[in-house]
């Protein structure tokens, strides 16, 4: 047994009491001005060494119900609340300036001031969220009311019921109404309601896919005093489970597509340098890495020189930048080394391996051996719920991006005269030159294109993985696997290969675990190639013999 078994209970009680108080107070007068001195004292009281005392101080501050309370609490939660070490004043440090937490008076720039941070921990953050939720139930803004209702839903306590009822009475917005209804149902189910109300609450909540609500229903199914409620809740949980099982298939599919899109991006460049040109390009992974580091540099430039409002656009700039940088490296590699090796394919393995070592070490010397931070811009963060599936924004963007890159490339190779020249040169270099095609330039550009695309893929990869000098090594084996599995030289093969490997993996993983899942995928590849020795999209006919 835990040494302090009552802690959770204490926390729950404290929260309950506080929310109750706040709700009551705020219901009576949404934004009452507290006595200025009392408020200031309450704010100052937040500066406590022990988290327990801090929690009490938060309680007290919330209980004042002052209109300025949310601002102070938010600052505490966000780690912006500080104490001036000399004056002892409690300040809010945000956006580089200091304001007095109690009076709102501007104090000056934050830079260089001797400040001590007032730290919040998870419990206090939770406490603050609940308290803010209570404040916001009666906010002017329906969106905030919905957030508040969700907040209560996350921490349902019986004391919240009256306020919810009142808020519901006054509610006009349909969305907020629904959220409030659910919150109320949750509160009632947790013990705040009569048996009938609880039964109705189960009904209201049973169409959810939200894990938190399922947790609530599970608790009810086990602990509710009323047998009927227990049964209904049990049924609801079962229904949710069934729905989830179906959704899981969809979810796995999306996971698979997402994993596949990363594989695809990693492999497309290789489909050119290796699939089309036949260069066993061991430095391909390093091209991905260079792309990712270019992203990092672009991001840093944005951070350093441009206002935060346009920060989200750094990726848009990083894509062409990465293409140019890695494309140029690719052209340099081709002109400097690889062009001497056509007709000696295996030597390209050796040379490009050497180049890959050099590039790795160069990046390590330049940027350091440690990971570099590349942030997801706002528009690529978080997730959206669709039909009960949760889709993380960055992955959706990457899936679409992968398709766009592949489509663009396929069109280029198929329809442009440069594309035709590229294919001609790689199939018969001598004859191509006899047809007037400048093979040297075409080779350089082809290699540059493949490398550039790898760089662009690196931009995408920087959004989901770590940016370090080893980045490339993690993808090189998989990339070759995809290209070969799909069928060397076929872009559509790469597409099908990447997605089928991604999806197969994601369906195996829940059953077999990540480790065994991966092993099974590899065995699957080995066996599959037995059946189709030239890959999934093997092109057949005399043209492909030898």
């Amino acid at each position, binding site marked *: 047994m835990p040494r302090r078994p009552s802690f959770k209970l204490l926390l729950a009680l404290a929260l309950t009491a506080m929310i109750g108080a706040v709700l009551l107070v705020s219901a009576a007068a949404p934004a009452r001005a507290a006595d200025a001195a009392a408020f200031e004292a309450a704010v100052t009281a937040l500066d406590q060494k022990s988290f327990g005392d801090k929690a009490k101080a938060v309680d007290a501050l919330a209980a004042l119900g002052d209109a300025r309370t949310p601002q102070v609490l938010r600052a505490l939660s966000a780690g912006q609340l500080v104490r001036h070490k000399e004056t002892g004043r409690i300040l809010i440090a945000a956006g580089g300036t200091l304001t007095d937490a109690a009076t709102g008076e501007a104090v000056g720039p934050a830079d260089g001031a001797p400040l001590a941070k007032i730290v919040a921990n998870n419990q206090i953050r939770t406490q603050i969220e609940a308290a803010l939720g209570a404040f916001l139930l009666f906010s002017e803004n329906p969106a905030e009311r919905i957030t508040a209702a969700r907040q209560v839903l996350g921490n349902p306590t019986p004391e919240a019921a009256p306020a919810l009822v009142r808020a519901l009475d006054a509610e006009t917005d349909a969305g907020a109404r629904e959220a409030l209804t659910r919150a109320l149902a949750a509160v009632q189910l947790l013990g705040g309601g009569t048996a009938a109300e609880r039964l109705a609450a189960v009904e209201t909540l049973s169409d959810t896919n939200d894990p938190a609500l399922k947790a609530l229903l599970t608790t009810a199914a086990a602990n509710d005093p009323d047998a009927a409620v227990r049964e209904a809740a049990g049924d609801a949980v079962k229904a949710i489970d069934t729905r989830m099982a179906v959704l899981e298939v969809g979810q796995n599919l999306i996971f698979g597509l997402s994993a596949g899109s990363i594989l695809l991006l990693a492999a497309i460049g290789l489909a050119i340098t290796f699939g089309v040109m036949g260069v066993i390009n061991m430095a391909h992974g390093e091209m991905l890495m260079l792309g990712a580091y270019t992203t990092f540099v672009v991001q840093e430039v944005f951070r350093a020189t441009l206002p935060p409002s346009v920060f989200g656009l750094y990726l848009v700039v990083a894509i062409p930048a990465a293409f140019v940088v890695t494309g140029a490296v690719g052209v340099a590699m081709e002109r400097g080394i690889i062009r001497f090796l056509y007709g000696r394919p295996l030597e390209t393995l050796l040379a490009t391996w050497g180049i890959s070592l050099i590039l790795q070490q160069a990046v390590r010397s330049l940027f350091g051996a440690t990971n570099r931070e590349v942030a997801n811009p706002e528009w690529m963060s978080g997730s959206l719920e669709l039909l009960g599936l949760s889709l993380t924004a960055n992955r959706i963007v990457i899936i679409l991006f992968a398709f766009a890159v592949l489509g663009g490339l396929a069109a280029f190779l198929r329809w442009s005269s440069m594309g035709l020249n590229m294919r001609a040169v790689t199939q018969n270099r001598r004859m191509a030159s006899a*047809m*007037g095609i400048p093979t040297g330039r075409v080779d350089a550009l082809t290699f540059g294109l493949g490398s550039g695309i790898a760089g662009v893929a690196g931009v995408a990869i920087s959004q989901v993985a770590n940016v370090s000098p080893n980045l490339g090594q993690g993808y090189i084996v998989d990339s070759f696997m995809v290209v070969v599995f799909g069928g060397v030289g076929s872009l559509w093969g790469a597409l099908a290969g990447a997605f089928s490997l991604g999806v197969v993996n994601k369906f195996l993983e829940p059953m077999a675990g990540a480790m065994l899942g991966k092993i099974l995928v590899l065995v699957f590849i080995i066996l599959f190639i037995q059946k189709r020795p030239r890959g999934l999209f093997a092109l057949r006919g005399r043209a492909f013999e030898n």
Partner: protein
Amino acid sequence: MLTVSDIHLHYGASHTLRGVGLTAQKGRVFCLLGRNGVGKTSLLNAVLGLHPVSRGAIRWEDDDITRLPTHQRARRGIAYVPQGREIFPRLTVRENLETAYACLPRGERRLPDEIFELFPVLKSMLHRRGGDLSGGQQQQLAIARALVTKPRLLVLDEPTEGIQPSIIKDIERVIRLLGQRGDMAILLVEQYFEFARDLADDYAVMDRGEVVLAGTRDSMEEADVRRHLTV
């Protein structure tokens, strides 16, 4: 006018061409004969720049092109039908023909109809991959591809190899026609004596990397030539 003067060519240590010279004029067909392995293809490779010469000079239309890279020679109007076809196996027939566009200014990039009149089979196979064609079809494609570039010097290495008799007759007609048009020089390597004799305005016979017999059609003595062609 193409002038090859005193060229030498080496493969590694082996001295394959030893001072070969010839002149092919526009409006005439120049025929090159010789047994296997005497250096005919090597000579053409030198003309196209596919293999460097170690000595001697090649002039085309008043310019010295001895050191020019192959693709620039092609852009100066030299087209090549190589021995062994050398089509692009994984490009479609149409794409194979379109590789010739690299020599043409943008406005002139189209496939002339005459090609399909000469080789009707290509028309019906435009979307088939070049490598899937039969040997003779590939040979036809290789000739057609060279014609698309609208060459002023057409270099053909045993163009009739593997082609059915009726089409050989057509090819013969076309070569004669092209030769007579006056704006094109034709350099033809051929083993098949009668075909060569019927077409040649000028001829040369090679043996062991040297020209051993040369002249115009009128001076061509069948017995002399044949002597050099037998072992």
